């Protein structure tokens, strides 16, 4: 059901872990729907993301999207990191099964939440960045069958 890339990122996740005194930390998702993602960013003085680590409670797709998201934002400026959308993460993973698309949304939210934390701490504004939602599943409705 998963692409080879998803399986690779699940089996060999990149950048698992924590960053002590991180420039920004964001936790999104909720245990109710079974996915929690935490993203740590280490951002240097010129606003470049030097290091990115994650911890995820969730399914195979959740782990793989977190792993891919960390790869994609590493080395980017905070503004460039805004281009790492859920679509970009999905494309980089050669797609996800339809029921797993919300995992990629979670990855995007996690990056944004960590950037938000960084922006708040440093009193800066990042264009297009909104405060993180408290619950990623808000607005989603269960399908009728």
């Amino acid at each position, binding site marked *: 059901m998963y692409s080879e890339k998803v*399986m690779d990122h*699940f*089996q060999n*996740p990149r950048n*698992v872990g*924590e960053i002590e005194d991180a420039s920004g930390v964001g*936790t999104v998702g909720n*245990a*109710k*729907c*079974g*996915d*929690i*993602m*935490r993203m740590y960013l280490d951002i240097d003085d010129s606003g470049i993301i030097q290091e990115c680590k*994650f*911890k*995820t*409670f*969730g*399914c*195979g*797709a*959740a*782990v793989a999207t977190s792993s891919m998201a960390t790869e994609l934002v590493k080395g980017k400026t905070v503004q460039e990191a805004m281009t790492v959308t859920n679509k970009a993460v999905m494309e980089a993973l050669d797609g996800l099964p339809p*029921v*797993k698309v*919300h995992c990629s949304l979670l990855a995007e939210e996690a990056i944004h939440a960590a950037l938000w934390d960084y922006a708040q701490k440093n009193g800066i504004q990042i264009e297009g960045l909104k405060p993180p939602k408290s619950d990623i*599943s808000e607005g*989603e409705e*269960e*399908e009728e069958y």
Partner: protein
Amino acid sequence: MKKFIYLDNAATTKTSPEVVEAMLPYFTEKFGNASTVYELGNYSKDAITKSRETIADLLGAKAEEIYFTAGGSESDNWALKATAEAYRSKGNHIITSKIEHHAILHTCEYLEKNGFEVTYLDVDEFGRIRLEDLKKAIRPTTILISIMFANNEIGTIEPVREIGEIAKEHGILFHTDAVQAFGQVPISVDDDHIDMLSASGHKLHGPKGIGFLYIRKGVKIRSFIHGGAQERKRRAGTENVPAIVGLGKAVELAKANMETKIRQESELRDYLIQRVLKEVPYTRLNGDPKKRLPNNANFCFQFIEGESLLILLDMKGICGSSGSACTSGSLDPSHVLLAIGLPHEIAHGSLRLTLDMETTKEEIDFVVDTIKESMDRLRSMSPLYEDFIKKQQ
């Protein structure tokens, strides 16, 4: 093909070689339609009769009370919808439980949309319904009680005999979904006061696509599939003779092996449960510790999510299942695990392993070792575990 350690026997079982062998002649040699007059058709007719008698015998029922269907879901649908229709003049209330299979729950929801009222009984922490709740739920309009014999996820065996007694006292029909229990544990339709019982072939080493509904003589339920006169005019359609023969053979084997199977499986199951609970911290057993199916073990591992565990097990050739949302296709974890009172985040970390007579101790040891490795890996990347450890310090 790759060799697997197959611990998902509640999902389906391997068709026994003896079953396949018994079925084969009914494809290419004895292929006649059982409704014909010539000798070739008689082979089929006789085979169907024999299979029906074997099944009836295991339940203590009469052969003419066994109606072949395409499987458990059809049997459940038939039992509920046709009873509802036939007894509508008497009342419109049905009692079931919150932990039934979706074949029952979704049928009940359908009936609710069509003017019926359904009470979904709560269960206790082990997944057993409370008889007091059942008694209280009974109304003058109650026409049917449908409670599963044993739960497919957590393996808990319901107090079927007591439920049957209560139903009988009140003159209410009692249906039980015995898909997981039939052929695994002894069932007597008379002693347990069962009026209707659903079962499926592929859960007991028979073929897929065949099952039956036991309907006690005198219960007036209508035809579900209209057409020819097969199955005493109650279930039309040319009989699936090879599958019926296969089911008969599977039941014959289940009967012959039941005692040994129960002993072997429960012994290994208890060994598995003990090792996991002892060696994997922050783990709980789901379901009744004693009154459970001999082959069922169901755990919740804290701080991890079931699907990722299943993938790690699959990488080592181990087949199991989970009640996490990610495996159900919705955002909610298993309704059974929620009904026994587990919070969502715990329910997401469930693993069900269902054994078979062929399962070995070596396999169980390998599985437990793999679970331990996987747990270390998943917990080390879990933010929930990180928070938990930090709180402890």
